[in-house]
């Protein structure tokens, strides 16, 4: 466990050295500046749009961090040949993969937490400045705690994308890993269509194939509850729990395969 923690902390430190936290400043500037501009343009829908923008930006910044750091986690060590020094230390290959993954998840957690605080601060300011008659017209309260449900599922989705990136990173080049991870991200958001393939084709084989793909590919659209949360619609605890469990199970599966692939790689 200590070895995993050591690797994880080093990944986190490296991301700080790589100036990843700079995106937080960009996020804050984006939100604060847009909150003023949006207020002038949107006919009273500024809080809804700030929420949409904040949640979307959290997801996009997290996606970039997941993909662009995740794809280099293992392959960079191999390219720099630092993997030899690392594996000569008392760290097993599964511990190495787990540590790398945990470090990036820690980076993402800090990012998502800071972005959430920034989003709530901007929303708090808007609530403070809006008269009660305007607030009465909002679909959901400005400082709605339910936003945390969407943020939480964004984080689980980012954990899944990170696991995909780490998985590809164990056997592929960074460019190919980025392309494959992004491809799976896009496919994962179309996944729900595969489930209903029987509505558009008659072939039983095609339907079975599509249904199989639906279960094999990550179902990323399930993690998107942004619209519901912004409009104050219910997202049940049961849905959150099952979607989280699905995400964690998928992450575990990917990391196990990544470990398998990495354990069998020959670094002579």
């Amino acid at each position, binding site marked *: 466990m200590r070895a995993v923690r050591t690797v994880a902390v080093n990944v986190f430190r490296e991301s700080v050295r790589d100036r990843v936290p700079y995106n937080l400043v960009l996020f804050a500037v984006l939100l604060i500046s847009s909150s003023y501009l*949006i207020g002038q*343009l*949107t*006919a*009273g*829908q500024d809080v*809804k*749009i700030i929420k*949409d*923008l904040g*949640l*979307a930006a959290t*997801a*996009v910044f997290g996606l970039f961090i997941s993909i662009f750091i995740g794809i280099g986690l293992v392959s960079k060590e191999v390219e720099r040949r630092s993997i030899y020094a690392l594996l000569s230390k008392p760290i097993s290959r599964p511990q190495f993969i787990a540590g790398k993954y945990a470090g990036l998840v820690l980076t993402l957690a800090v990012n998502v937490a800071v972005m959430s605080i920034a989003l709530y601060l901007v929303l708090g300011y808007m609530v403070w400045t809006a008269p009660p*008659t*305007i607030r*009465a*017209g909002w*679909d959901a309260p400005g400082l709605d705690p339910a936003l945390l449900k969407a943020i939480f599922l964004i984080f689980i989705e980012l954990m899944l994308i990170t696991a995909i990136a780490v998985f590809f990173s164990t056997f592929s080049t960074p460019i190919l890993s980025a392309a494959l991870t992004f491809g799976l*991200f*896009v496919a994962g*958001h*179309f996944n729900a269509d595969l489930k209903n393939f029987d509505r558009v084709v008659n072939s039983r084989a095609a339907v079975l194939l599509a249904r199989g793909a639906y279960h094999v590919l990550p179902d*990323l*659209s399930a*993690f*998107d509850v*942004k*619209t*519901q949360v*912004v*409009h104050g*619609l219910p997202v049940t605890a049961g849905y959150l729990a099952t979607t989280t469990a699905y995400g964690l199970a998928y992450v575990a599966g990917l990391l196990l395969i990544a470990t398998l692939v990495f354990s069998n790689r020959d670094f002579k």
Partner: protein
Amino acid sequence: MTPRARDAALVVAALVMFGSAVALQIARDNRYPRDTRQAEKILYVRSGEAIKRMTLSFDALASDVYWIRAIQHYGGDRLAGPEAGTKYQLLYPLLDLTTTLDPYFNIAYRFGAIFLSEGYPGGPGRPDQSVALLRKAIVVMPRKWQYYHDVGFVYYWRFRDYQTAALWFQRAAAQPNAPNWLTPLAAAMLTQGKDRAAARFLWQQIAQSEEPWMRRNAERALLQLQAMDQIDRYDAVIARFPPPSGEQYSWAGLIRRRLFIRVPLDPTGTPYDIDPATGRVSVSSQSPLFPMPQEARQLQ
């Protein structure tokens, strides 16, 4: 040159270059003005479903972009006025896209209900599109009484179809949390649909909305109704006392004959016009209440 002086020179040179770029941009825009109106009128993708697919999980943000475009389009055409010949062609497609991308965008439906049905130049005068948008809202949120009410209002105010309006008000009354005035309103619509008081009551309800633009629109409509009452009274007086033969109708003549003490003003303080041939009073084209809704003029 010391490193410090070199850095300072680089910063100054960069600032000069950026300044030159801005100056060139201003000079180019002044010399070769670009036709931005043309760019605004283009809607590259009209299928909401296609955009929904393309935006992956960011459809809500895309809906915000289309909402802002809808507001800009409406505001731009309204400010341009009838002289510019703009007729809100993109208002319905933009609102349709907005609500396809975010089906719970309540304000987009209600904005469309009010302004799509508004006659030109206040809107495109397409109550059919208002109803289409509201029907779309009802499919997504069938328990929201406001959408049924808005459909009823469009049938009442724009189509003057009191039977259908009453039916929609009854449907609104059947929804949870519906206000208790909807049932008597539906009944009144069936028995006395042409009553201007019903229109006033409906606009008064809309004037209590949380949305400032809905309140402003309702307040203007209430002033128009007030102007219609005044015009009816003035028309009656003028019809009873026609001018001497050979003389045309005019405010000066009516004041001279002591039928009026001064030129009457509409509720915004703008003098009314009078038709010299018929003596009919009307709202001046300079008045903020112009143009008056023709449908409402036919209400009693």
